[in-house]
């Protein structure tokens, strides 16, 4: 893999850098061009068409989380762009249990997340202003082994994702990025069975839903270097950390790093 990347670095033309032709796609409405790649430990993307990009997160596959994202950009004038992004993530606990050890008839817990994001970007001089609205549905269902417990639950969130990119030169840009909760709701059902004695039992059903109020959000400032092929982003953020993929805010206010690296060609 390393030799492949080195070969790519040596042979591919200068595609990256902060130019109108190669805008950063992470926090914007922009997509990769047709047949363009973005390879990194955190995300792999491919431009299937000039307006259609496919993504996956390799490190999530390492944790047996199936995932994929499709991003479509129907509108791009050069200064203005709009895109829509739909993802699918699934963690099936059965994948962690050998087939020979799985109990027949047991529904092992499955966690699914479906994020949908609408993004808009406006490029003006040395700045790009981006605004995204992310809708995420998270669901959980399954039986918890050895506890006679079945659970179904979920979360629904709507999040505003503004980002400003300030290009200080062709290589370096500063990125001010934020996430603000607009809507956050949790719901769930739990069924647990108690064997009271040999003649009786009770199945207790718990259900509930709650829309959480109050501010949650975060802001980060990072430097984004974009060389010919290699890109590096380093920065720090503070606030309620938003768990990637499921877009759920951690309630505590913390400092967190903003790190990413990838090769684009």
């Amino acid at each position, binding site marked *: 893999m390393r030799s492949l990347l080195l070969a790519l670095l040596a042979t591919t033309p200068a595609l990256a850098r902060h130019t109108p032709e190669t805008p950063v796609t992470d926090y914007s409405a922009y997509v990769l061009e047709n047949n363009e790649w973005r390879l990194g430990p955190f995300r792999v993307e491919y431009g299937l068409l000039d307006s259609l990009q496919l993504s996956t997160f390799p490190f999530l596959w390492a944790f047996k989380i199936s995932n994929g994202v499709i991003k479509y950009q129907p509108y791009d004038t050069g200064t203005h762009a709009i895109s829509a992004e739909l993802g699918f993530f699934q963690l099936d606990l059965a994948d962690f249990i050998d087939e020979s050890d799985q109990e027949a008839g047991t529904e092992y817990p499955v966690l699914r997340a479906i994020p949908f994001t609408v993004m808009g970007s406006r490029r003006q001089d040395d700045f790009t202003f981006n605004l995204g609205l992310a*809708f995420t549905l998270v*669901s959980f269902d399954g039986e918890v082994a050895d506890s006679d417990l079945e659970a179904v639950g979920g979360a629904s969130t709507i999040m505003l994702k503004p980002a400003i990119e300030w290009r200080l030169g062709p290589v370096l840009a500063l990125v001010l990025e934020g996430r603000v909760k607009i809507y956050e*709701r949790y719901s769930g059902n739990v069924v647990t069975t108690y064997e*009271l004695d040999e003649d009786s039992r009770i199945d207790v*059903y*718990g259900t509930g839903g709650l829309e959480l109020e109050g501010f949650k959000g975060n802001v980060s400032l990072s430097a984004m270097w974009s060389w010919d092929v290699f890109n590096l982003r380093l920065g720090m953020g503070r606030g309620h950390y938003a768990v990637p993929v499921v877009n759920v805010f951690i309630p505590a206010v913390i400092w967190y790093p903003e790190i990413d690296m990838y090769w684009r060609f």
Partner: protein
Amino acid sequence: MNRFLPAGLLALAACSNELERPTPPNLDGLAATYADVTGTLDARTAPLLLQAGAEKLGFVGDAQAMLDLIFGVFDDVGNLDNQGEAPIEVEGEGLSITRSALTGDEIDISAGAWGIYVRRCPGWVGDAENKRGSLRMTLLFTEEGLEPVIWGQMRQCRIEAGKLQLNGELSVKLEGIENGFDQGIQSLLIKFAGDYASDGPLERVAFDARVLPGDALVTTVELETGERFLVGFGFDGSVRVVDTTGPWSCTESACTGPDAREVRF
């Protein structure tokens, strides 16, 4: 179309994954008839009453045999509550903890918790387990313990006392638990509708009865004149009548009432 999307997602989020809490039958009307005693026991009404209530007295006697089964429900549920061993307690604390791990917020699910209680009936002497039948009741939990009405089915339920066999709908209203389950049940209203047999063939019946705390199990009997009494059996085995003046204890030829008043017939 896009402008409708957020609203659609919100609607989906709002209804995702939540089970519908069962709705109990309304026994308020029935309870009101027990509070509306209009008859006065005297030499005229006493023989009419015992004659009119003869068949119902049979049901009341059999209902006494059902009481052990019904009280068993409360014993079991009370123990479940008091032991606090449940991953989800009826107060919902357990699920709150589960969610706190995710959101850090305390969530009270008590308004949504309910249980399905299943008990094998005692059966007749010599019955195999699968011949004993069962009692299946739905219970709604509140922060104080239980909603006043529990309901469900008796399925081919056999009880040795009276050689009873019951197959139908059973509803029970608890009275006097407003101050918490530990304070004890002040009164109990029972309603049964379905197939019933008492040492004989099954017949279609509908009957109701009410426990007078520490005293008797009675049902309503209305004379042709419209006068309404409560008639039943005291826990000491005597026939009990309640009229507008209070409870009476009766033999085959006389009733003794409040202030040692006596009516002979």
